[in-house]
């Protein structure tokens, strides 16, 4: 649990220290990319809770989603249409669904732990 958080903090610090900026017109690409990363991350967490995590799926999913989102944004800019909204929409829906599932799993887990504790107390 602590490893991802640490990496997240390291990433944030790295970004702020290098003080890197990108031109305004590329900010939309980055936003979509961030959404893709979030989506992959939550998908990964969900899979882990279901004990169905697979590295290959995780990594390929990350890169493919990333590339697809950026490509869609680029295409949208060329066509003069806000195609990146499609990516935002898809990722957004999946994000919420994944978070809901994660929440359910965690609550279930909490319940089972509580029950087992009660059971152990009773057996004593």
């Amino acid at each position, binding site marked *: 649990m602590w*490893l*991802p*958080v*640490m*990496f*997240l*903090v*390291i*990433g*944030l*610090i*790295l*970004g*702020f220290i290098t*003080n*890197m*900026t*990108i*031109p*305004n017109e590329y*900010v939309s690409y*980055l*936003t979509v*990319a*961030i959404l893709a*990363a*979030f989506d*992959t*991350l939550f998908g*990964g*967490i969900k899979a*882990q809770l279901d004990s169905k*995590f697979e*590295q290959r799926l*995780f*990594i390929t999913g*990350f890169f493919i989603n990333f590339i697809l989102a950026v490509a869609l944004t680029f295409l949208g800019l060329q066509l003069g249409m806000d195609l990146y909204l499609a990516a935002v929409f898809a990722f957004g829906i999946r994000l919420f669904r994944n978070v809901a599932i994660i929440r359910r799993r965690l609550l279930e887990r909490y319940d089972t732990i509580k029950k087992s504790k009660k059971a152990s107390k009773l057996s004593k």
Partner: protein
Amino acid sequence: MKQKNRLVQRFMVGIVCLVLGFLVAIVVNSNHQATERDTRDTWEIRTSLLEEQQAQQELYKEIEEAENTLRQYKESTEHQQIDSLKQSIEQLREQAGLIEIQGSGVVVTLQPLFLDEESQEYPSINAELLQLLINELNTAGASEIAIENQRVINITPIRDVNDNIYVNNSSIGDLPIEITILTDNPEQLINQVEVSEIGDYFALENVTISIEAKNEVSLPAYDDQIDLHHIDIVDVTEEGEE
């Protein structure tokens, strides 16, 4: 084996988190630095600093004057209070251009310029050109201006009506036109007008500008009602306010 697998798993998630953090930091950075960069060099900054300081000085002076007036009101008796009020009114009337004033100044005469051409119409100017000239005179340091006995105040209209130029709602007639200007420094005003492009613009219309400094000029008072009925204060956000 399973332990190792878990570690790799976490590492993968960690890498994605790293990328995520980095991207978020970049976006935050970019959004923060989207504001305009200051690209002035030292000299420009120094001059603008100087300008601001001068403006500050002037503001201080204004505050001091206002405080003086206030003190006069407070310290004096009723009779004196009325006196100082009258004085203030007189001062304001002078600023508004409601009083005839005399002083050192300049007389600008717009005259027709006749070239050696076979047939030439009698030259005329338009209101736009006259407005240009007024602007030029104001930048050159004119404190009060009168066009053909029509005092120019803050709300004076200069416009074309049926091929005539109207100033303060009355025609000023054909050329030659005489413009009387009150200024503290006639010489500087004359120099500045002479080197400016305004003479060329008038020359295109076959009009010459002749300027003459005078020790004593007299400007008539503005004799109409000042109608501020349709004037409202516009809310303008000051620089630095958001």
